[in-house]
Each structure stands twice: as structure tokens, then as C-alpha cells.
């Protein structure tokens, strides 16, 4: 197999890289090699231009003005909602709720679904590989409602233990909230099976798709997910905007999350009548620019094609895994057949902080530490890992730079 990524048919890596201006910058005198895409993605020119265009031509408040600018901004914002709905294959556009990000989406469900449907002794199931943002809201809810939080374990490779899940789930389980793609291990969880099993027991399922959306096609109807969340900034849009998808009947049955403008139909001093979906869950002036630009960002990845992206990133993953495994003493965490292009690793006894600091000096950006998944690190009895999370604008040449950097770090830091 020819691993030179430039030769992949129909995938113009030079053109794609030229869309991302930041990739040209230097760090400590070296060309930036950005492998921290799991933390946040870089932004293409199309997205950066869309931000400028919004402020130069459309800026105004939405859903309330009769003037032209407000109408245009409202149309652009609602058009972005429709783009998101199509991207996820949602049945209705009003099943798409704009939030500040995945964390707020999960908190919205914990608060609102929790208020309506969680009672004393009910159960919520998560996995042992959740991001803290899919653990803490459930701790808070369970404490308040005297409900029980159950955890699906995973094996040494990062594979969820499905037999354990089947034993954990009962008729008292109201919600299963799990990560689609693990941010710290890169493993893609068998979410379709989990959803099927959960539904057989009458439980709803929330998927944290923050690490899935940038890398693969997600079809909420094919998955039959009840809730799906993701963040704009990990999918080439700005920070401060995210999405909660929810099935219409569920969202209708849930009370509002926050009170304020936008989410009301009528307000007297005695009583509020809430607005319909999706506005019921969107109190206050939203991140208008972020919402509009999120639509542009999804258009951008669709113009490349998610199948092509997945295919290309799998080649990066396989190449990086092969090259890393050539280095003596490297241990990779997360080794399942189905993975996103994320490699969490340790080199011998070298602390990930030391590894990250040396790589930074070489212009290479990786994430180090516990990646907001402390229970995963506890599971493996390690302080953290170094994580290279790749994206379709990365190249095999950059992987070679990373490998040389790791070797240099080992040479400097090794006993």
C-alpha cells in the first residue's frame, strides 16, 4: 500500500491545506504541526470569511426586528439550523437546538429531561470513558433526585463490555448517556447496539458526538438516537456554539431549560406561555454569528465529503499507529478495530507533560494530561497520556515529524 497521502485519488490535500491559513505559521522557528484537533479544530478560510461577512453585512438581532438586516440575519441563522438538520438527517428542523456547546447540550438534557422523567431510584447509565462533561451533570442530577448512576466498564483495549451493559440495564433505567467516539482513546463505541438494547428496556439514549461529528457521517435517524450533541469548534466553526438534537416528541414533553426572551409566546406578570420548538430551549439572544458560521463549516466538510474524510483519516491513523509501534517502549491506549484518528500513547516511563513540552519546542502541538477523562486514566493506573488527534488537513509527512519528535524526546528524557 502506498501510504503517501498525497496520492489518494480525489483527495486534494494541497488544496485543503491552503484553506487553513494557520497551518502556515511557525512555532519556535519550526513549521506548526497541529495534532490537537480533538481539543479544537482549525478554521478554514471559508469559515473565517463567513465570520467577517456576517459582521460586515448582516449583524443585527434575530427573530424580533422588522427591518431588513434583522430579517436577513434571521434567515441566515434559520438556514444554518436547516443545514444542521440535513447534516444529521433529523426528521424536523425544529429538532435542532442551538446551545453553547456539547457541555451545555448535556446539561440541558440533564436539567430538563431530568426534571420531567427522573424519579427516586431511577437509573442513568454512562460508560467509564466519558468526558467529565458527561459525568458531572449526571452526578448532580442523581444527587438531587436520589437516582442511581451506573457505569459500563471497558476492557484493556478500550472496548466497551457489552455483556456488562446488558446486566446493568433494567426497567428502572431511564437514560443511557454515552460518548460516540472517546476523546481520550479514540475508540468508536457500538452505539447502534447500545441504542437498540436501551430501547428494548424503554430507556432513552443520549450520544455525546463531540469527537464523532468532525470525522464521520452521523445519521440520527439511522442510529435511532433520542438525543445527539456536538460542539461547533471541534467541527471547524467558532467556539461558543453547539447543537442538541432531540426527537420532537421528547423535546415537546420536556420543560424549558432557561427562562428569558426568545423562549416565550406571551408573558403577563402572572404567567408565561412558552414558545414552540426549537425556541422553547433558546432563551436570550443566541450566538448568531456562531450559528450561521456553523452552517458554513458543515457545508465545507460536506464539500470535501465525509466518506473521503473518513477514508483519508483512516490512512493517517494506520500510518501513525504503524510508525509509533516501531518505537521501542511505546504503549498505545485504545486499540479497538473501530477507531477515529486519535492516538493516545505513553513512551516508556516518560511523563506526558515532559513529552508535550519537548514536542512543543519542535513545533508539534499534542494534548497531554488526563483529557478531562480522569476515570480512564485511573482505569489504566497512569497520570495521563500524550494524545495526537489527527484531521483531514494533516499529512503523513507531519506524522513523520511527530515520530522524529517523539524519538528526540525519548533521547532527551530517557533514563
Amino acid at each position: 500500500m502506498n501510504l503517501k497521502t498525497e496520492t489518494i485519488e480525489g483527495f486534494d490535500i494541497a488544496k485543503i491545506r491552503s484553506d487553513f491559513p494557520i497551518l502556515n505559521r511557525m512555532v519556535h522557528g519550526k513549521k506548526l504541526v497541529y495534532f490537537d484537533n480533538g481539543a479544537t479544530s482549525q478554521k478554514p478560510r471559508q469559515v473565517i470569511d463567513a465570520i467577517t461577512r456576517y459582521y460586515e453585512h448582516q449583524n443585527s438581532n434575530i427573530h424580533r426586528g422588522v427591518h431588513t438586516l434583522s430579517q436577513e440575519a434571521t434567515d441566515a441563522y434559520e438556514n444554518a439550523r436547516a443545514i444542521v438538520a440535513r447534516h444529521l438527517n433529523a426528521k424536523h428542523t425544529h429538532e435542532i437546538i442551538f446551545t453553547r456547546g456539547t457541555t451545555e447540550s448535556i446539561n440541558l438534557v440533564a436539567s430538563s429531561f431530568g426534571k420531567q422523567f427522573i424519579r427516586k431510584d431511577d437509573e442513568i447509565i454512562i460508560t467509564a470513558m466519558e468526558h467529565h462533561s458527561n459525568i458531572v451533570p449526571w452526578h448532580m442530577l442523581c444527587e438531587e433526585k436520589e437516582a442511581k448512576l451506573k457505569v459500563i466498564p471497558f476492557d484493556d483495549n478500550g472496548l466497551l463490555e457489552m455483556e456488562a451493559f446488558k446486566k446493568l440495564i433494567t426497567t428502572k433505567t431511564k437514560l443511557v448517556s454515552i460518548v460516540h467516539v472517546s476523546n481520550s482513546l479514540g475508540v468508536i463505541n457500538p452505539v447502534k447496539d447500545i441504542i437498540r438494547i436501551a430501547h428494548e428496556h424503554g430507556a432513552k439514549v443520549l450520544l455525546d458526538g463531540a469527537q464523532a461529528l468532525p470525522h464521520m457521517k452521523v445519521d440520527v435517524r439511522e442510529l435511532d438516537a433520542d438525543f445527539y450533541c456536538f460542539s461547533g469548534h471541534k467541527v471547524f466553526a467558532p467556539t461558543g456554539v453547539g447543537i442538541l438534537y432531540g426527537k420532537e416528541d421528547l423535546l415537546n414533553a420536556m420543560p424549558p431549560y432557561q427562562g428569558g426572551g426568545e423562549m416565550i409566546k406571551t408573558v403577563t406578570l402572572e404567567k408565561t406561555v412558552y414558545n414552540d420548538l426549537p425556541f422553547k430551549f433558546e432563551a436570550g439572544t443566541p450566538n448568531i454569528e456562531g450559528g450561521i458560521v456553523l452552517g458554513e463549516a458543515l457545508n465545507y466538510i460536506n464539500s470535501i465529503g465525509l466518506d473521503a474524510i473518513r477514508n483519508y483519516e483512516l490512512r493517517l491513523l494506520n500510518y501513525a499507529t504503524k510508525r509509533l509501534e516501531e518505537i521501542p517502549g511505546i504503549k498505545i491506549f485504545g486499540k479497538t478495530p473501530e477507531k477515529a484518528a486519535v492516538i493516545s500513547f505513553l513512551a516508556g516511563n516518560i511523563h506526558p507533560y515532559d513529552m508535550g513540552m519537548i514536542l512543543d519546542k519542535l513545533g508539534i502541538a499534542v494534548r497531554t494530561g488526563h483529557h478531562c477523562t480522569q476515570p480512564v486514566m485511573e482505569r489504566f493506573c497512569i497520570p495521563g497520556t500524550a494524545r495526537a488527534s489527527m484531521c483531514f488537513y494533516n499529512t503523513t509527512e507531519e506524522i513523520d515529524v511527530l515520530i522524529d519528535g517523539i524519538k528526540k524526546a525519548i533521547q532527551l528524557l530517557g533514563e
Partner: protein
Amino acid sequence: MSIQETENEIIEEFSLFDDWMAKYEYLIDQGKDLSSLDDSLKTEDRLIKGCQSRVWLLSEFRDGKVYYRADSDAILTKGLVALMVRVLSGQPPEEIVKAPLEFVDKIGLKEHLSPTRSNGLVSMIKQMKLDAFVYQTKNA
């Protein structure tokens, strides 16, 4: 040797290196030379938690001076810990409390004290000064 004199000595040592790698090699050597704390001393109450690396600090007051011992699980952090111990250990508490500790900046390693690195070093320096302040107050 006073705090300032030790700081100057370190600045002079680092001035010999003209690239980051030589500096880091020296820092790593400093870390390796600092004797590790016995595991039994690495207790929760002595732990200074950083998001990225962990630091353990012990201090004692003897003959009007503060003596520190410290350790870290990351070697670069430990190198800086070693420099801090070298500068502050064996000094009178009133000198430690008011030490500006500008040498880290001057040797070009300020990035390790950035709050985003979250390696426990900034908290360790605070704790070293706080310990000194307590001894100073008790001693007064």
C-alpha cells in the same frame, strides 16, 4: 549564599546554553540530581496538584532557616523544582517571603510558570512562600 546570589549563579549557568535543547538537558540533569522523595513521604497533604504534573513539597524550620524537600512526577517540572529548592532552601523565612524569583524568566523558562501549563509549579512557589510566612510569624 543569598537568594539573589544563587539566582545570579543559575542565570550565569544557563547563559552558557544557546539553544532550548541544551537548556532542557541541563534542566533534566538538575531534576535527576534532586534526590527523590520516598514514596511514604508523597502523601496527599504534601501534594500540590497540577492538571498536568504533580509536585510534593515538605518544609521544616531549623535554626532560623527554612529547608525544603520536593519532588515531581514529571522530570522537567522536577528540574525547575530542583532550582527552586536550590534558591530558597536554607534561607531565612523573611528573605523567602519577599524573594521576587525573577531568574525563571531570565533563564528563558517562564513558559513553565504559565497558568495554562498547570504543572503545579506556580502553586508550589506559593506554598513555599506560605510555609516561610508561617515560620516567620511563629518565630516573631
